[in-house]
C-alpha cells in the first residue's frame, strides 16, 4: 500500500476533518498534484499517437479522396457513418446520467455524472468529425448550415441528414452548457484552493466569480433542473434523428418504425458500456473508490442489463415483423442478416449485446469489477458491430440482385476508427488531469451531514 502511494499520489485516504473536506481533497488532489504518475503519461502518450494516426488517416483521405476508404457502391454509407453512430451513441449515457437520472432523483448519479458528461462531449466531438469527412469535400461543410451563401441556395430541411446537423449541433451545445454549468461551483472550489497565479486566473475566469451565494444557488438549481428537463427529450430526439437517417429510406433493414426508440435504447446501453469501461480503471487509478463505490458499479450494471433487454426486444421485433410483413425484401434481408455472408456481424452483435450482459442477473458478478470491465468492453464491441450490421450490411444486398456486393473495411478505415479513440482519450485524459472529475458540490449535497436539521441551541 505504501509503495502504491509513493508511485501514485492519488492513492491513500483523502485528508480532511469533515466529510465535505474529504470530498474536496479527494477530487481536487487529482488536478493539483504537480506531476501525475508515470501511468498517466504513458496513457497520454498512447492517446497522442492514436490522435496522430487519426489526423494522418484523415489527411490521407483528404489528399486522395474518399476512395481511400473501403466505401464502394452499393455500400455508400460505410465506416464513417458506422463510427458516427457509434460515437454519438456513446455520448447518450452521459446525458442520461446527468439529466434523466436527475429527474428521477437517483442521487447515486452525482458520483459519476461529471465524468459521464465529459465522456459525452468528447464522444460527440469524435462523432461530429465523421459526417464532415464522409462528405468528401471537407472545405464545404458550411453548406449544411442555413447561412446565406453565394449560391443563394438553402439547405434542404426535408432531409433527415439536415435534421442531423441540427440535432447533433444542439446536442453538442446543450451537453457543453450542461457540463460547464455543473462545473461552475467546482471550478470556484479549484480557484479558491489554487496556489499559483495562473491556476487562479484560469479557474477564476471560468468560475465567473461564483461564491456560493444561496440566492445564486436558488436560480442555479432552477436552471439546472430546466436544463435537465430539456436535455431529456433532447437526448431521445438526437438518436431518434440519427435513426431517421436510415429509417426514412426504403431499404429493408433500415426502414422500420421501431428504429427511434431502438436506437435510443442501444445508445444508452452502449454509453453505459463505455462508462463502466472507463469508470472501473479510473476509480482504481485516481483513488476515487470512496466516491465511485461498488454500489454505483452495481446500479450501472443493472441498467446495462435492462437496456440490453430493450435492445434484444428490438432485434426480436425486427425479425418477427420482417416475417409478418410478408414483404419478400424484408424477409430476405433478415434471413441474409442471420444466415447470409454477413452472418458473423449479426451474431457478434447479438451475442455481445444480448447474451453477455445476462451474467448480471447474479449479484456477485454485478459487483465484480473484472466482470464489469469485460462485459463493458463486449458491449462496446457489440454496439459497434450493431451499427456495422445495420448500416453497411443492409446495403450489401437490397432489391436488385445485380447490384449486390459485399463490404469489408480496409486499412485506412481501421486507422480512422482506431485514431478516433485517440482523440477521445486525449481529451479525456486532459479532462481528468485539469478539471474536477467528480461533481464535488453535488456529492457533498447528498452526504448524510448535508441534510440540514435546524439546530436549536
Amino acid at each position: 500500500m505504501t509503495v502504491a502511494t509513493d508511485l501514485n499520489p492519488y492513492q491513500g485516504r483523502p485528508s480532511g476533518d469533515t466529510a465535505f473536506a474529504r470530498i474536496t481533497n479527494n477530487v481536487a488532489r487529482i488536478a493539483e498534484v504537480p506531476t501525475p504518475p508515470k501511468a498517466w503519461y504513458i496513457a497520454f502518450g498512447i492517446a497522442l499517437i492514436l490522435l496522430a494516426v487519426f489526423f494522418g488517416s484523415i489527411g490521407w483521405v483528404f489528399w486522395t479522396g474518399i476512395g481511400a476508404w473501403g466505401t464502394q457502391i452499393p455500400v455508400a454509407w460505410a465506416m464513417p457513418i458506422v463510427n458516427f453512430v457509434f460515437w454519438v451513441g456513446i455520448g447518450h449515457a452521459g446525458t442520461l446520467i446527468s439529466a434523466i437520472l436527475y429527474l428521477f432523483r437517483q442521487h447515486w448519479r452525482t458520483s459519476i455524472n461529471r465524468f459521464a458528461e465529459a465522456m459525452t462531449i468528447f464522444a460527440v466531438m469524435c462523432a461530429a468529425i465523421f459526417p464532415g469527412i464522409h462528405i468528401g469535400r471537407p472545405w464545404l461543410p458550411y453548406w449544411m448550415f442555413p447561412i446565406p451563401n453565394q449560391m443563394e441556395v438553402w439547405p434542404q430541411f426535408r432531409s433527415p441528414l439536415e435534421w442531423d446537423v441540427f440535432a447533433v449541433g444542439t446536442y453538442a451545445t446543450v451537453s457543453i452548457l450542461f457540463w460547464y454549468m455543473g462545473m461552475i461551483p467546482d471550478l470556484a472550489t479549484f480557484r479558491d484552493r489554487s496556489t499559483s497565479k495562473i491556476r487562479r486566473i484560469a479557474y477564476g475566469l471560468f468560475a465567473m466569480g461564483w461564491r456560493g451565494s444561496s440566492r445564486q444557488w436558488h436560480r442555479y438549481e432552477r436552471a439546472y433542473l430546466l436544463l435537465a428537463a430539456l436535455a431529456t427529450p433532447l437526448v431521445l430526439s438526437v438518436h431518434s434523428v440519427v435513426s431517421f437517417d436510415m429509417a426514412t429510406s426504403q431499404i429493408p433493414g433500415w426502414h422500420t418504425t421501431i428504429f427511434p426508440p431502438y436506437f435510443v435504447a442501444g445508445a444508452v446501453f452502449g454509453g453505459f458500456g463505455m462508462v463502466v469501461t472507463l469508470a472501473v480503471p479510473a476509480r482504481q487509478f485516481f483513488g476515487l473508490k470512496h466516491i465511485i463505490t461498488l454500489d454505483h458499479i452495481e446500479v450501472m450494471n443493472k441498467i446495462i442489463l435492462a437496456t440490453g433487454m430493450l435492445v434484444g426486444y428490438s432485434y426480436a421485433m425486427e425479425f418477427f415483423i420482417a416475417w409478418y410483413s410478408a414483404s419478400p425484401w424484408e424477409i430476405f434481408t433478415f434471413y441474409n442478416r442471420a444466415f447470409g455472408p454477413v452472418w458473423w456481424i449479426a451474431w457478434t452483435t447479438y451475442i455481445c449485446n444480448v447474451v453477455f450482459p445476462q451474467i448480471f442477473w447474479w449479484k456477485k458478478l454485478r459487483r465484480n469489477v473484472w466482470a464489469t470491465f469485460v462485459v463493458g468492453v463486449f458491449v462496446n464491441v457489440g454496439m459497434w458491430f450493431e451499427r456495422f450490421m445495420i448500416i453497411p450490411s443492409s446495403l450489401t444486398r437490397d432489391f436488385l440482385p445485380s447490384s449486390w456486393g459485399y463490404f469489408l473495411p480496409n486499412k485506412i478505415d481501421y486507422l480512422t476508427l482506431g485514431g478516433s479513440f485517440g482523440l477521445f482519450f486525449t481529451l479525456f485524459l486532459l479532462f481528468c488531469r485539469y478539471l474536477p472529475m467528480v461533481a464535488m458540490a453535488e456529492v457533498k449535497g447528498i452526504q448524510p451531514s448535508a441534510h440540514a436539521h435546524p439546530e436549536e441551541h
Partner: protein
Amino acid sequence: MSDKQTDAKKSTGEAAKTEPDAPKDGAGTSKGGAGGTPLHGLIAEYETPGALLSASKKVRDAGFKNWDTYTPFPVHGIDGAMGIKPTVLPWIVLGAGLTGLATGILLQWWTNTYDYPYLTSGKPMWSLPAHVPVMFELMVLFSAITALVAMLALNGLPEYSHPLDLKKYFARATDDRFFLVIQASDPRFAEDETWKLLEGTHPTAVDRLEEDRVTPANMPRPLVFGLVLVVLGALVPFALIARARVSTSEKPRIHIIPDMDFQEKFKSQRMNPVFEDKRAMRPELEGTVAVGALEDDDHLYRGKLGDEWAREFPAQIPISDSTMKRGQQEFGVFCAPCHGQVGHGDGMVNERAVELAQGTWVPASDVTQEYLRKQPVGELFNTITHGIRNMPPYGPQISPEDRWAIVLYVRALQRSRGATIQDVPEADRGSLK
C-alpha cells in the same frame, strides 16, 4: 467600536481558539487598514448546514433584506429559511423555447417553401412531419442557452470582485464551511445590534467585512483585450461567408481534388484518338447478332404477315385466361397511367396534363373507340412497340409476349365497351346481379 477596530475578528468563546481552521485576520484588514474603509457588512461562519439554517431563520425573522448566505453546495431548505422568492427564470426559458419554435417554423418555411422552393422526393413544399425535428431542436437549443445565460445574468455573474474575496478564510465557502453575511446597506443594519444578533446564532466566528478598496474595479487590460480578440476571431469565418455572398470573382474556381473533377476516362459521344474513326463509343461489328436478338419471326416480333398487319395472334401466344391476366397486369403497369384502368384515355397522367393545359399535350386515346376496334391486332402491337404521336415506344421495355398479352387485353376492353348482358356467358350472369 474601537474595541472591534483593534480586534477586527471576534470569536465566540472557546470554539474559535481551539478550531484550527477558524478565520484569521484576512488580507483585507491588514492591507486596507481599518481606518477609512467603509463597512460592507458583518460575516458569520458556521460549521454545519443545520446551524446556518437556524441562523438564517433568525435573520429572516429579524426583518433583514440585504443579506445572503454562502455554502459549498445548495443547502436543502435554505430557500424557505431565507425567504427567497421563486425565480422568474422558468418563464424566461419558456419564452425562449417558444421563440426557438417560431424560429424553426419561420426558418424552414422561408428557406424551403418561400425563398427557394423546390420539389424533393415528392414531398409537399411545406411538409410538417419533416419539419418537426428541426423545430424541436431549435426550441431546445434556444431554451438551453437562455437557461444558462439568464441564470448568470439574474445572478449578476460574471462578478469580477467582491469584498468577501479579501477574507482568506472565506475560501472555505466552496469547500466545507457555511457563511452568513448581513450587508451594512440594509436599513435595519446597526453594527452593534447586528453583531449581537449574529453572535446569538451560535456561529464559530463573527467578523467585520470591509469594502474592497484594494482590487481594481475593472478587469486587467490584457485580459479584456484577449477576450475581445477571441470574440472577434470567432466572427471572421462568418464575415468571409457574408462577403462571398455579395462579391463576384473573375478567377477560375479552385479544384482542390483535380483528379475527381477531371477524370481520365472517355465519355460517350466524345473523341477517342485510339480508334481510327475517333469515336469513343464503339458500334457493333457488322454481321454480329447478340444472343436472343435475331427476331426472325415477323408475326411474333413485328405483327406482320408479309406486308399486311396480322389479323390473328401468333401461334406462340396462347389465347388463354393466363395470357389475359398477364395482359391486364401489364396494361395496369404501362398503359393505365395515361389510358386509364379501362382504357378510356382518362389515366392520371393524362388528367393532370389536361389540367395543366400546356399546349403540347396530345390527349391519350380511348383504346375502345371505333377505329381502334377495327385495327388489326398486328397494328395495335406495332403501336405499342414503336409508339405513336407523343406516346413513347414500349418495345425496349416490354417483352413481345407481354405486348401481345396487352393487345389481347385491349381487345377484351373493346369488347366489353357497350357490351350487353347477352355477351356474358349464361352461367356467369347470376354473379352480376
